[in-house]
């Protein structure tokens, strides 16, 4: 029992991401308002971004910005430095997320102009009529 | 049989395929369109007949296209059996073209261009099946034929045609996709090639249960051969115009079905393999059921074309029966029956077409006394009926005689009895038509509505009837081809 609890506590960050992802998924699928769906998508993507970032974390490591003189003199020890690659990847992922959000917002404006509402069930009602 | 490379088989198949282009383009000029059809059919017959002397002397032809699947090219091979079928089919196409000219114009049918184009395409596929060198090519042309004949069957484009068309497609295309295609693939997996080889390619390649499965799938898959219970499309297809029914369903489509089964029996499985597994005899008894039941059902049909349709169902199973018995005489008889039945049945269908043109009647009960007004038609009908029944001096006697000899050779006396009984039934459902036509007194109604039958319809009818008669005396060409096909 204590192993389980200590296991959960040790990896608390991953559990948080899982919970965030579930919230995001629930919002995307369960909510009826288009804006809420979009926010759910953002939460989901954010959770994944955080997941990636936490991959690169090392206890007691320095941030990956090097001092030129010091590096030229003493070299650099990768073990002491945070892994920058996930951060870089996630910059790209953030850009992708923003683009998708932009497109989704544009589409929502179009939907709003057409139907006057952003609630999915109301829109479907209008379509059936 | 040795084979040389030649382009003539390709030309024979392609001439009507390419011929669809000039036919379609001459939409506005009927005479040009009809002339093109005639020209193409004559050319096709000429090409096929030109190969006859070589085939008779044991020299066949091959033409191979690229390998579309590993080890499987699209290829043509002209051997005796294929030559026999191709000769009959192309000659009868010429007759049917003439008949169509008269029939379609007299009845003022629409969309003639589509009709001639589809006919041309269907003929291309028929000769493709006849000359196919492997199962893949044969399957391909089999499917193309099914699709090319759909516009012909549904030519009248009204509502009763819709359900007939659906039945036609579902039986023919459905069975070939569900049964024949897996059988072809399983054969390929067992053997590695699908080439037709006299004596078969499956010996020793697969276990007995697998062979049984493949055999059953093939028999079920080629529903064009109308073995019961896959025969129901033929009566349904009788909604087609008379030339279509006469040619495609008396000669081409159904013969493609039996031809495919014959190829599977002789050149994929091989007589020896089937004999060792006893499948031949089992198949023979299975189709005897069809022969009897079809003849019985034909007795009950009042619509003339439906009666002829059920007669065809029975006669096709004669062909399968002959080859299934696997003796020299029975195989010869079966293959010969392809020829004899074709000529006889097409005569009968032409007669029904002429009757329809003249009187718009389809039912036999309304045709009393018609013989007195259409003596030529009824005489031709009589000749055709005698040929189908198998009485001398008509060509049908030759094939039936061989079949009877074959049953004796195979020691299958019950089948002999079935054949004789079936001939009696054939007489029972054909001869009364002729009797009532000549000797009954009909009502006077139809005297007023009598139309002239155009010469275009009468002449082919007489030609095919004459050929049925002449084949009794001059049958050596076909017998020789059948002997080569059976013996090899």
């Amino acid at each position: 029992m204590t192993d389980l609890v200590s296991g959960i506590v040790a990896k608390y960050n991953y559990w948080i991401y899982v919970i965030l992802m579930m919230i995001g998924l629930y919002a995307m699928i369960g909510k009826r308002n288009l804006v809420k769906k979009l926010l759910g998508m953002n939460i989901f993507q954010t959770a994944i971004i955080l997941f990636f970032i936490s991959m690169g974390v090392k206890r007691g490591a320095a941030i990956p910005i090097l001092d030129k003189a010091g590096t030229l003199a003493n070299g650099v020890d990768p073990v002491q430095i945070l892994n920058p690659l996930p951060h870089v990847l996630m910059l790209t992922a953030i850009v992708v997320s923003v683009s998708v959000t932009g497109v989704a917002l544009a589409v929502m404006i179009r939907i709003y102009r057409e139907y006057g509402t952003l609630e999915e069930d109301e829109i479907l009602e209008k379509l059936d009529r | 049989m040795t084979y040389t490379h030649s382009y003539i088989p390709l030309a024979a198949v392609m001439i009507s395929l390419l011929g669809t282009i000039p036919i379609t383009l001459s939409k506005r000029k009927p005479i040009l369109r009809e002339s093109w059809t005639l020209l193409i059919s004559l050319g096709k017959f000429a090409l096929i007949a030109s190969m006859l002397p070589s085939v008779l002397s044991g020299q066949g032809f091959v033409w191979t296209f690229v390998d579309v699947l590993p080890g499987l090219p699209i290829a043509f091979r002209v051997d005796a059996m294929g030559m026999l079928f191709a000769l009959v089919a192309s000659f009868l196409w010429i007759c049917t073209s003439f008949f169509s000219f008269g029939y379609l114009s007299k009845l003022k049918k629409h969309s003639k261009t589509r009709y001639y184009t589809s006919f041309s395409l269907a003929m291309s596929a028929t000769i493709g099946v006849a000359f196919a060198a492997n199962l893949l090519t044969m399957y391909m042309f089999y499917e193309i034929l099914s699709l090319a004949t759909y516009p012909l069957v549904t030519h009248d484009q009204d509502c009763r045609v819709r359900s007939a068309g659906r039945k036609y497609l579902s039986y023919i295309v459905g069975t070939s996709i569900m049964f024949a295609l897996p059988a072809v693939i399983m054969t390929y997996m067992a053997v590695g090639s699908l080439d037709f080889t006299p004596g078969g390619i499956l010996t020793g390649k697969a276990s007995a249960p697998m062979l049984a499965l493949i055999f059953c799938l093939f028999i079920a898959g080629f529903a064009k051969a109308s073995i019961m219970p896959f025969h129901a499309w033929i009566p349904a297809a009788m909604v087609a115009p008379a030339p279509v029914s006469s040619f495609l369903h008396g000669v081409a489509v159904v013969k493609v079905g039996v031809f495919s089964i014959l190829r599977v029996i002789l050149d994929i499985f091989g007589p020896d393999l089937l004999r060792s597994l006893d499948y031949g005899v089992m198949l023979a008894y299975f189709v005897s059921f069809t022969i009897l039941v079809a003849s019985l059902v034909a007795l009950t049909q009042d619509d003339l074309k439906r009666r002829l349709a059920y007669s065809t169902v029975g006669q096709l199973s004669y062909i399968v029966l002959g080859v299934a018995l696997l003796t020299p005489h029975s195989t010869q008889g079966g293959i010969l029956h392809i020829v004899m039945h074709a000529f006889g049945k097409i005569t009968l269908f032409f007669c029904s077409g002429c009757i329809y043109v003249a009187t718009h009647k389809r039912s036999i009960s309304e045709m009393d006394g018609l013989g007195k007004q259409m003596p030529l038609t009824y005489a031709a009908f009589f000749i055709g009926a005698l040929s189908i029944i198998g009485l001398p001096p008509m060509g049908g006697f030759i094939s039936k005689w061989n079949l009877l000899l074959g049953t004796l050779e195979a020691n299958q006396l019950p089948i002999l009895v079935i054949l004789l009984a079936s001939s009696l039934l054939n007489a029972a459902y054909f001869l009364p038509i002729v009797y009532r036509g000549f000797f009954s007194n009909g009502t006077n109604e139809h005297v007023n509505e009598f139309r002239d039958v155009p010469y275009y319809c009468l002449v082919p009818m007489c030609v095919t009837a004459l050929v049925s008669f002449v084949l009794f005396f001059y049958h050596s060409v076909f017998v020789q081809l059948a002997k080569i096909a059976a013996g090899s």
Partner: protein
Amino acid sequence: MNSYSNLHMYVMAVPLLSAFALNLMGRLSRYWVLPLTVGPLLFSTIGSVLVLVRVASEGAFSYTVGNWKPPYGIELLVDPLSSMMLLLISVIALIATFSANAWARREFPGREHLFFTLYLIQVAGMMGLVLTADAFNLYVLLEITSITTYGLIAMGKGRAPLASFNYIILGSIGACFYLLGVGYLYMITGSLNMADIARIIGTVNHGPALATAFAFVLVGLCIKMAFFPLHGWLPNAYSFAPTSASMMIAPLMTKVTIYLIVRVILSVFTPEYVFYTHQAVQSGMVWAASAAIICASSLALGQRELRRMFSYIIVAEVGYMVGGIWLANGQGMTGAVLHIVNDALMTLCLFLAAAAMSSRIGSLSFDNLNGLCRKMPLTMSAFVLAGLSIIGIPPTCGFFSKWYLLMGGIETGHWEFVAALLFSSLASVALFFRIIEFGYLRDMEDKQAEILFKATPSNEAPMMMLAPLLVSAASLILVGLSSGPIVRFVRTGILKFL
């Protein structure tokens, strides 16, 4: 020599750059749109032919972008499979452009340059997708392609924006799952280069993390390619999309995603891992694919509108390919890859036919199709040919891929897959011959005919729409007859991995 060795980069870059040029020049004058679309795509087609020839003669090669050596830099892999896909994408985009242009003039008058900007970016994105050999780069390109698709679909009228929004939500879930999978792979191997990952996986004791990675990647890509039951976005998205967009998106998007699964299975998670370590998953996927085929074909039978019917057919075809891949068999994989090519062509022909018909009769619900065979014989003949290919009648291309799939199914004893394929063929017979009955056996009412087919010289669709249709229909037979060489070429690409 240098530019020759960069040729595939140009093939991808030219449409991308001309998209931006098109956006600017198109604002000046409408007449710039067609040349600036056709020109780059023509260049890409010729370029991809040259790349294909090079791969065929010299074998596969890899290319590092910016000369950063892998595994640090991004690597592009040009091998038989990817060069074939490159050619497929360019050719289909090129053929569809003519018809799309004619339709764009009708649907977005004055805004065609916006449409074609997105069009070209999508094509460039797809070309990048098939070339890349880096897992994260794949995600980026996947999203580029998807975002442009979202935009293209949302440009339509009526229900299109809503369908597009739904697609955005579901598509993002898919892409994020894929990203999650890549994250797990990175955690295990520390590398993003596909070949490198495969190498490291072999040496590391991975346990359930690899299985999780694979599961996420698989589910993500299955959502993107509309594998039943994750297909919910596709029917709405493809049937409500503007006609000009559907004829390019429908043939390509799902097929490229299936190519991605093949690539991921072959290059990242080696076939041994995917198929043998998880036997239950392998049989399970084949069963799932069979269920997908049967359900999608049955759903297609219930549709009353032509393009919706086509979208369910697409879902069924995806089932063919997924099942073929998961048969874990040379024949099955060959069939699946061949079917990618064949299905792209068949779908192109179907959607071009729908566009041609729609140009005359407007709505494509079945009630409207009466008597069409007489009015538009050429269009209907091409449509029938595409239908025959879907049914699987030789010598059209659809038969040959079905042959391999059936053979693979029989060889491995997956009779449920064989039964599903045959059922789908029969269902396709019913589907297409029902349409043929409408077009052929019924007659169009005179009033309707008068309205729709006004005094125009020919009843057929305009030449810009008819010509691509006829070309794609002819290609169905040509590709079918050349199946032998194509399969040989495909096998050189696959067998290296099997």
